[in-house]
């Protein structure tokens, strides 16, 4: 397994290289630059600013210089926030996104798994219908509708929470619920589907015939196989949820990395775009690797290849 993990980690190097290269040139070819402004900048001033950031150099030299910097762990200065570096911005924002993502993931797993198991075990009963309807709602109602609805009710109407911000522990509740609910819906549906498939298999009938209790059948035999689709979903899902969500961070005014990522593209903040892309790409690669390992652990018929 160690060889498998190492090999996969080595494979990430060319992947990241390609992503960085493609992103580097793509952002440069988008119309408008970091200093394109509504009030025109006199050309000689613009030249001085560009010289400060090395943008006056030929593109290939900028590219090589950037790669050299990145290999030393320096993601460069932000073009938009001139007294901060990309490293500082990521160090500042990533923990917020991880916290939001972690809480949302906890909501998603607790709600999604329990409803999914319940729906599968009590198939075609009212419990199943409630769980399925909830799942359907979670998938259909977008976060930009659910978030403001929760704010209107719990913050404005009841006054239990702030409408936005990331200051007190209570500020975590509404955004985590909003983000978690969407993922919970997917997890619920995948768990239900996976569980139903396993529960219909012969070995479950055998276990029942041998007199195994229902609890043992569900948690010991069915759940392990039933979770496989959920685990496959969690690879990209966890990467997405942990790195935050632009919509949630915007609605709730959360100083996370998701918002920074999107805004950096709008601002043509080249170095910040690249820094966040590198981070996100790495996270996705790592999450997928973890998922592969967990899948083999859950289903020994799969082998580390």
């Amino acid at each position: 397994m160690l060889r498998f993990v190492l090999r996969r980690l080595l494979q990430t190097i060319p992947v990241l290289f390609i992503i960085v290269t493609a992103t580097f040139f793509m952002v440069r070819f988008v119309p408008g630059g970091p200093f394109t402004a509504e009030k025109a900048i006199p050309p000689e001033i613009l030249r001085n600013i560009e010289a400060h950031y090395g943008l006056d150099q030929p593109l290939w030299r900028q590219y090589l210089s950037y790669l050299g910097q990145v290999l030393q762990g320096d993601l460069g200065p932000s073009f938009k926030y001139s007294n901060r570096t990309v490293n500082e911005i990521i160090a500042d924002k990533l923990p917020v996104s991880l916290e939001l993502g972690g809480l949302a993931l906890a909501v998603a797993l607790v709600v999604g798994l329990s409803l999914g198991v319940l729906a599968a075990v009590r198939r075609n009963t009212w419990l199943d219908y409630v769980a399925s309807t909830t799942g359907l709602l979670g998938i259909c109602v977008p976060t930009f509708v659910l978030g403001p609805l929760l704010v209107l009710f719990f913050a404005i109407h009841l006054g239990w929470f702030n409408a936005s911000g990331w200051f007190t522990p209570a500020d975590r509740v509404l955004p985590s619920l909003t983000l978690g609910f969407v993922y919970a819906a997917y997890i619920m549906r995948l768990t239900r589907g996976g569980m139903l498939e396993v529960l219909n298999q012969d070995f479950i009938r055998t276990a029942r015939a041998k007199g195994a209790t229902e609890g043992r059948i569900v948690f010991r035999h069915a759940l392990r196989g039933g979770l496989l689709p959920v685990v496959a979903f969690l690879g990209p899902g966890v990467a997405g949820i942990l790195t935050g969500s632009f919509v949630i961070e915007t609605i709730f005014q959360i100083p996370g990395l998701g918002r920074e990522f999107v805004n950096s593209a709008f601002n043509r903040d080249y170095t910040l775009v690249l820094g966040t892309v590198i981070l996100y790409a790495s996270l996705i690669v790592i999450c997928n690797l973890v998922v592969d390992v967990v899948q083999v652990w859950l289903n020994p018929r799969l082998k580390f290849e």
Partner: protein
Amino acid sequence: MLPRALLPAFTAALVLFTATACGRKEPAPTGGPAPKILLFGNGAEPQDLDPQTVTGVPENKLLNAFFEGLVSYGPTANDTVGGVAERWDISADGTVYNFHLRAEAKWSNGDPVTAQDFARSYQRILTPSLGAEYAYKFAPVIGAEDYQRGTLTDFSQVGIKALDARTLEIRLKHPVPYLLEAMKHYAWFPVHIASVEQHGGLTSRGKAWTRVENFVGNGPFVLKSWRPNQVIVAERSSTYWDRAAVKLDAIHFFPTENLDTEERMFRTGQLHKTYELPAAKIDVYQRDFPDSYRSDVYYGSYYFRFNVTRKPLDDVRVRRALSLAIDRESLARNVVRGGQQPAYGMTPPTEKYTARARLTGDLTEARRLLAEAGFPEGRGFPRIELLYNTQDNHRRVCEALQEMWRQNLGIEVGLINQEWKVYLRSMDTLDYDMARGGWIGDYNDPNSFYDTFVTGGGNNRTGWSNARYDQLLRDTGRAPDETARMELYQQMEEIIVQELPIMPVYFYRKVYALSPLVHWPANPLDNQNWKFVHFKE
């Protein structure tokens, strides 16, 4: 059956939830006597707090709290009061200004604010390697442009000199009657030279001197904390010369990019003032929360640029026909809806100046002109595109215009929506037919508007050029008095209204929500001297 019974219950719960959630709820602003903390929605996260390298409105609000220039905004609309300068003398020919600084003016670390601080700060902003985007604001000063371009390296040749610790002399190339107005801008603020030198040097951007632990300012407030994308806390300065006049204990600046989120923050008492109000909420506030609704004059014009280098818009008859065929009153009342004033010229009226020239004519005239240009009843009119940047308000205005032209002139106009920087690029390269545009005055003087349309000016972006207009603009610098200068502007407005490089639509207003507890003096430039903001007794 249970499931069937459950579905209506579920639906009912959802409807009830939604209904209660959307119900009317009074804004509940908090705050008050002690401590007097103003919770302020400040739009976007600032780029930085260096007054000599930043640009932008959110930065402006912050810098007005942390710094003070020689002159400042007064308690009412267009006042100019002394800032660090307690008085100033202007030479008879209007080209030499001597500012006399207050003895009691201090930096937040206790150092005195001196004329040398100003001179060295102005030298810094003009230093080419700093790449200060607003260095051009010093253009009227002798030698400033040359120094900024690097063709002059001896700063003593520039018309800025500290005559002694408390006297600063500024020499101009020609009289600039609006200089004091223009000097309220943060480009003219001083920086604490020793701090800037210590934390990165004077001549390069993006250094650590603006971080909380290193920051030294001279304004009514000091920087207490800065949590990026969350809040910037400004506390009353104990060293500010006029600290007794400062009524607020602190200001919390919240970056609130999303207007809907900001409005919800206001309703839960997290803000005393919003940056703006979403257009969809204007009616609601006017009807339900009139005490919190504010719509103030804002010194700006909303217009559409014509690309006069493209057919058929190179024909002034076509530009006039398009401009006459829209119903500005209806647009302002039904589409924009914040009390905006329909515009029939480029320059917004002020106490000081109201343009005489006015776009006049009616629909019949518009149709006649279009026919005369070769497009009777719109026949044969090539499809032109209307470019706007992504924003709801612009989209709605553009759709309304599209419909008005279809109905009134029988022509089809397409809409193109571009992301902000792409849109700016299209305007810069004249890659458009008609484009949404606007201009907010940098200072309270019509020059701020007329300067924009000079031939080849970076903000012109229409391809339009008029030699007489350019000459009149040059003449304003030599006008013998204010009356003569304003008369020249009147003539410039006439040229604009005759040739129509732009299609004026409305004059802006600043529409926002404000807690009834707060005294907020309105100002056409939407700039505040924070010491005049306070909670009502």
